[in-house]
């Protein structure tokens, strides 16, 4: 049985939805960071899968490499910020970051 593009897009949308709802519902900054990674991987699935159905060039596959590299850079900055937050607040729950309020 041939698996069509629709199946891949469906999988990516489900994964993206899981990531987005994880980001919105959890309050732990580390979990939120992981949720963003899940969302980016949903994007990678779309790019690589679509590339198979548009094989004229390899833009999709190249794009997914860029996404992986940039996700790593983003994680580096993000973890640094979470560590800085933990040093000051002794917690990584983003609800406790509430000095700035109105």
């Amino acid at each position, binding site marked *: 049985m041939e698996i069509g*593009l629709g199946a891949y*897009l469906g999988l*990516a949308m489900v994964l*993206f939805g899981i*990531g*987005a709802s994880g*980001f919105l519902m959890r309050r732990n*900054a580390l979990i*939120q*960071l992981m949720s*963003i990674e899940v*969302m*980016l991987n*949903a*994007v990678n699935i*779309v*790019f690589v899968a*679509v590339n198979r*159905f*548009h094989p*004229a060039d390899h*833009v*999709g596959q*190249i*794009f997914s490499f*860029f*996404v992986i590299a*940039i996700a790593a*850079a*983003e994680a580096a*900055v*993000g973890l*640094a*910020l*979470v560590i*800085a*937050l933990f040093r*000051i*607040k002794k917690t990584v729950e*983003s609800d406790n*970051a*509430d*000095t*700035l309020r*109105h």
Partner: protein
Amino acid sequence: MNDWLFVAPLLILGLGSILMMLVDAFAKEKSELAILSSITMGVAGMISASALLSGAEAADAPEMVTRFLAVDPAALFFDVVICFGGALSALLAGGYLREHGLERGEFYVLLTLTTLGAVVLGRSTDMLSLFVGLETMSLGVYAMVAFRRGSSTAIEGAVKYFLLGSFAAAILLFGSALMYAATGSTSFTGIAAAMGDADPKLVLIGLLLIIAGFGFKVSAVPFHMWTPDAYEGAITPATAFMSVAVKSAAFAVFVRILFVTFGDELSMSLASGWPPVLAGLAALTMVYGNIAAVGQENVKRMLAYSSIAHAGYILVGIVAAFRVGSEAVSAVLFYLLAYTFSNILAFGSLILLGSRGREAVSFNDLRGVGRRHPMAALPFILGTLSLMGFPPTAGFLAKYYVFSAAVQAGGSMILLAILGMLTSAIGAFYYLRVTVFMFMRDPEPGQVKAIPMKSGYVVGALAISSLFVLGLGVMPGDVLEAASRAASLLLG
């Protein structure tokens, strides 16, 4: 024209920041770096400005460049806005960091690399260069917000900005992935060319996700939650940079993607396209930004809400362009330039009014400072007059062009223009309130009086910005012409 010239500003910014890392390793006096980074960005902006004003034709740019980066006059115009915003912020940082004992060289390197990312973002013609530019810019800005790493407000603002910014980038990226799925291309023109036989459902979802992603980046309501916290937590020169260069770059690529990629009839229609969505965002942004700014006790937070409000005015110009075309886009370009200089004036003056240990951030800090030090308060008044849209400043003409483009577009756009003018009147209230505090309120008994710092860098940046705010307001001719040429070539 030599091929290298097309990417000269980018090369200068990239090589300049590498050079700065070397200088930082060996130099003892860190404020030399302020001059160096300011010159790097100034020169990069100057090159684009001279290419823009001389009207050089870029038709023979090699495909290797134009595949990912635009070289048209609009790209050059945004280069100028972004680079000048960066250069002036570097000067502000030169005074601020030394005064407050935060002198660490990496700030200037981050600033220059972030500007490089912003220029790439503003020039991008492909989803790939858009994403790389966006992340280069954003990651640098997150670090700049967290620069004062022992301060809980700075880290808190940075974490919130980082989480929401990365979330927005992922949404934007998923939108472009869906556009790729629908059309099989990632370049703006390639997507537009294949739009005809694309699945309209995928295109619509992709478009909405892309608009939501950009909504975060330009801080349009309801995607603005991070803005006040990040603006308040960041050190003031970084706030100034975020409010001018980062916002201009996001608007630059937003305009390009809307009119190049989504410029077809279906995407521009009132029934199923982006104009009604953006019009709604613009109305919400103007109303909420202005009303929320009224109740603020912190001047930086007030300016954050004011920058949200200005994003609303700019969105009005973008929406108007779907009917009026290049005239409205040129108004948006002019607005971004005027807004850059006005905002630098407001933040720069706020920096000038503080000194070590007594940074002026709240309205109460500013009590009576205008009477004691009128020269230091003057730039703030000029900047806020321009943000208010008071003649003969650049801000007046910018608002005038944007709203008259909206009126010209007719229909419900006139309502948006009226809403814009009404909310600008609210704006006058909170901008003038600062002036009232500076000149008509005495300090509370026992309050530490604000004393202006002495810094040639800050004064220089303020002088340049004042010159441009008044110059653009009195003689906008050449700049306006360049903007309208850029806009008409962008819309093709």
